[in-house]
């Protein structure tokens, strides 16, 4: 038996990918509208009272944003992998079961009601986005369960309908909102990175890393589950438990990502695909590698968003969509031809 994944082989691949991630983070932290030099950043010789501008930009502007892109990219890619396996649909993404519209609805409600408080340093927009995302996923899961246990089609249809319904509510609220409110909502819907403070980043990192590790732990079960619930059951997998765990964790890390940076599309769709095309479908390597490459992809995309129309900035969701859209279409044609599932 050749070409099978071994722990040693996996460890090597993850280490190389992590090295790549660190290199990309390093390079991207030096790129920006203000040119900074590393030498100046760590220059401690100047007097304490004087502010070192290079240090300020590096630590308080560039670094938080790169860490944020890293976290969000990893969360979306990991959750994309899991939704594709759970729904047995290679074209699924983290938003397919209504997370996006639920979060969007939360945001526009927060904007319109004009709330003005903070919870653990988070604005009402982020809190409402998180609550909306999780609430919607719970609703979709609940409806999906009503249509029959382990029925994937019921879940997908419930997701589509809830998405459409909530989108209609968003349209309605948009139409009665003031133009300033509409603007800030749309900006959020396009996906947007800002310079977060470190306490928020650590909290997000804790949630997302724990989630990714938990998903890695159930990766062998996800492999079997991609053959369908009946087959997985006959092979001794506790389907209900694994599905619920995978679903809950993937939804949670997506909700965290969405509340940090809005709706960033395509990362959760194309990164899992690209990694699967290159490394194969085994979830034991697909989850960690997708996480790392998702982080790399979003860091690069956000760097582009920062510099392309400098000194203005693009929403990062625009960059990922412009890069991801065509790539996704190529994949769609390729997959449909190869597997032929679209014709069945």
């Amino acid at each position, binding site marked *: *038996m*050749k*070409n*099978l*994944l*071994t*722990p040693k082989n996996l460890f090597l691949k993850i280490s190389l990918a992590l090295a790549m991630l660190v290199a990309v983070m390093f390079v991207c932290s030096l790129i920006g509208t203000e040119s900074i030099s590393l030498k100046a950043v760590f220059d401690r010789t100047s007097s304490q009272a004087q502010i070192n501008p290079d240090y300020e930009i590096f630590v308080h502007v560039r670094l938080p944003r790169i860490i944020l892109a890293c976290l969000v990219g990893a969360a979306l890619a990991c959750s994309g992998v899991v939704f594709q*396996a759970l729904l*047995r*649909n*290679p074209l699924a993404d983290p938003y397919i079961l209504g997370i996006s519209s639920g979060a969007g609805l939360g945001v526009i409600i927060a904007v319109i009601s004009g709330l003005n408080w903070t919870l653990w340093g988070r604005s009402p927009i982020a809190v409402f986005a998180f609550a909306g995302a999780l609430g919607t996923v719970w609703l979709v899961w609940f409806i999906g369960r009503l249509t029959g246990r382990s029925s994937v089609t019921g879940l997908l249809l419930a997701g589509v309908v809830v998405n459409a319904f909530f989108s209609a509510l968003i349209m309605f609220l948009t139409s009665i909102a003031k133009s300033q409110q509409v603007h800030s909502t749309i900006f959020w819907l396009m996906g947007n990175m800002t310079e977060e403070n470190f306490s928020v980043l650590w909290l997000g990192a804790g949630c997302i890393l724990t989630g990714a590790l938990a998903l*890695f*732990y159930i*990766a*062998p*079960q996800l*492999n*079997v589950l*991609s*053959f*369908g619930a*009946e*087959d997985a*059951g*006959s*092979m*001794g*997998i*506790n*389907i209900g438990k694994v599905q619920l765990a995978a679903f809950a964790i993937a939804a949670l890390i997506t909700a965290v990502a969405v509340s940090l940076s809005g709706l960033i599309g395509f990362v959760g769709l194309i990164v899992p695909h690209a990694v*699967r095309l290159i490394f*194969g*479908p*085994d979830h*034991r390597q697909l989850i960690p590698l997708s996480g790392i490459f998702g982080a790399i992809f979003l860091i690069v995309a956000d760097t582009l968003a920062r510099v392309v129309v400098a000194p203005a900035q693009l929403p990062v969701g625009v960059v990922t969509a412009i890069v991801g859209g065509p790539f996704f279409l190529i994949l769609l044609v390729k997959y449909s031809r*190869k*597997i032929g*599932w679209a014709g*069945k």
Partner: protein
Amino acid sequence: MNIIEISNLSFGYSRADVLRGLSFEVEAGCFLAIAGPNGAGKSTLLNLLAGLLKPKSGSITIDKAPIESYSTKAFAGKVAVVRGEFVPIFEFSVSQTVLMARTIHFGPTGFETRADRQIADEALLSTDTAQFASRPLAQLSAGERQRVFIARALAQSTDILLLDEPTSFLDLKHQVGIYDLLKTAQRQKGKTIIVVTHDINLAAQYCDKALLLGADGNYQYGDTTDIFSTHKIEKLFAVKGFHGQVGREKFFLPLGKFAKDNLSNHNQTR
């Protein structure tokens, strides 16, 4: 020794009962065919035996223990199932697929042990699938893929194998190939094998026992030679046909309205 005991088993979907008062025992190491017209409940019975459906009344015991007393994991160590259809989603290779049968034995690392690999290797060899072990499933022919799924079931190391129409999409050579494979597993490893099939001629050749399920809820259970009698088959499937014997093998060939030989009133016996 009876490995499976079914007593007074009934099951129905929303409208009417599909199975009514079914009772039979399967000896360990037996090769059993389940046949009957469409809608008679063959696949339902298989799903009941696989633990996917719960009986409305009556009981199924496996190794003297009621089927509902097994955990999912423990049951997967007793019964392996091969299903007819397969829709490829991701490009798993043959050896990856077969190894998945060992997932419940993986350690906390989530990786197979050397013993797991050896068991999977043996399953690949015994099903003649080792030659394309690294190819993706979607690139195999239907016959090759069916052998891979049998390999996966064998790698589960269970006493009982359940198969739902394992030969339905296969050509003649591959049909015989699958039955040869199953017979070998029965003889060499002492597996108890239950197939749901429409091919009563192959079943008559290979199986020791047969269960004929009628659409009206009646059933017949016994040795294959007794059960697959011309009279019973014509009555159960409501079709006339040739029947005969070549050497020691019996066969039945259904004849339709437009068959060239109009033999609806007299049967040829030689």
